[in-house]
């Protein structure tokens, strides 16, 4: 009797599996087919350029560098002694250090940095993960974004419902102290200075 019951239960299991025979596959054939990434997907960090002039939006305010928990962003933007304005010299992101948290994007008040949906950036050498300003700008050229710069950052208008709906106030953590900060990797040619912040 027990044997019959066991066989019956095994058959129930097989029937459930059998239902899936002939169903279409739910997997896709990467890289021939690709998954469409959702709009908010957090892939590689890119720098955004002005849609009209083509210049970088970044003002070198260092907020993203301070917000980064992995110290993956290195910026060199010394203040001009006369105008007291910062001039952006180098902007390097070490993708090997980045943990794709998105805090840099949220810290930026100038629509200058964004996490694009791209996710394919493997490199044979570790040095290849260091992306300099030029490369970050190039990759960011065809990334769509909503420019919020013209308005005062404090009065950011709520974005339309379809966009990425970022919280209206931002957490901009204070700087990582220099003791916690890792020095950029050795092969980095344009090593950023910790300038007076």
């Amino acid at each position, binding site marked *: 009797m027990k044997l019959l019951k066991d066989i019956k239960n095994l058959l129930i299991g097989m029937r459930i599996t059998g239902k899936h025979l002939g169903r279409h596959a739910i997997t896709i054939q990467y890289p021939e087919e690709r998954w469409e990434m959702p709009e908010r997907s957090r892939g590689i960090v890119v720098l955004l350029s002005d849609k009209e002039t083509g210049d970088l939006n970044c003002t070198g305010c260092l907020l993203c560098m301070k917000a980064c928990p992995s110290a993956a962003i290195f910026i060199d933007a010394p203040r001009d002694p006369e105008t007291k304005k910062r001039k952006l010299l180098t902007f390097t992101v070490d993708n090997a250090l980045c943990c794709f948290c998105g805090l840099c994007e949220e810290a930026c008040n100038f629509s200058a940095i964004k996490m694009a949906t791209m996710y394919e950036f493997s490199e044979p050498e570790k040095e290849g993960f260091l992306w300099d300003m030029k490369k970050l700008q190039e990759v960011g050229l065809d990334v769509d974004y909503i420019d919020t710069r013209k308005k005062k950052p404090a009065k950011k208008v709520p974005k339309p419902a379809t966009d990425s709906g970022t919280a209206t106030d931002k957490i*901009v*953590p204070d700087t990582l102290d220099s003791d916690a900060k890792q020095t950029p990797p050795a092969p980095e040619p344009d090593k950023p200075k910790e300038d007076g912040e």
Partner: protein
Amino acid sequence: MAELRTEEFTVNMGPHHPSTHGVCRLILTLSGEKVIKIVPVIGYLHRALEKICENRTYAQCIPVMDRFEYVTAMSCEYLFSNAAEKLAEIEVPERAEYLRVIMLELNRIASHLIFYGVTAMDIGALTPFLYGLREREGIIDLFEMTCGQRLTYNYIRIGGVSKDIPPQFEPKCRETIKTIREKLNDYEGLLNENPIWLVRNKGIGVLPADLGIAYGVSGPVLRASGVKYDIRKDDPYSIYDRFDFEIPTRENGDCYDRYLLRLDEIKQSLNIVEQALDALPEGDIKAKVSPNFKPPAGEVYARVENSRGELGVYIQSDGGKKPLRVKMRGGSFNQLQVLPEIGTDCLVADLVAIFASLDIILPEVDR
């Protein structure tokens, strides 16, 4: 002819044994096929997460928390945010609390689905693994649509959540709930009465309730031994006291009961998500938190009911922008400690079943 004799035999199970879920090494002393001694060796995944947190500002700790227990990263984020909010006495907006509960419960379901698949695979049934992960995919898609990541969300923040849910979230979420409800029948049909599954699980690795309590075991493992203890009910956090749900328990405390209990919990969590979606209010998703968040000096312990038992964090603050001391408590550590007690005197194959049913995750043990 030389005299035949048997000898005890010491082998390493792990650190790269597929059924030790990560990198746990068990030094087994065997007599034939029988296990007579188990010594777990841990630390292979130690990343000094607590120390890392002490070198980060509070906001920067959240991405680190994701790595503490990556199968239910939402719980860890919630835990840390909750602790910081308690310290600084921040009031979280209604809508944010509802969103948090939705995410926490979805994450619990996702974790139990992984348990369902992985446990079955350890015991030798491959099909449930594919089914479990397929349904989990629906939940992960919801997370990705909301916060942009599939595993390390960085979604729950101090004072609220980082982004509001997109408009397509609610219909998709209800659809996922419906699918999982339907598929749960398939899951039960595949394993619950399966004779091989019964032989491998029933009466194996019995954990008596008093032993579990003595070792500080919590969560589903303890509830499967008949102890009705769930932090969501016993020490309600967030807005769990507003929802109508049961705490399922089982009596026998064996591998089979631990398995059944997790399926029961999935059903309860689905109910909670549904209730939260129905009652989701409009409003802010984040309280105003100063960019240079500095909680007052003091100490706090926060705890949540995770899919692997009590998850706790102790934060000591000196009033600075970084925590002075962070100490984590994960349920897996206690579950691993109890393994030598309930795993000795069984067969090696049963040890695999017991290890799987305890649902230990190693990053939580090793920190």
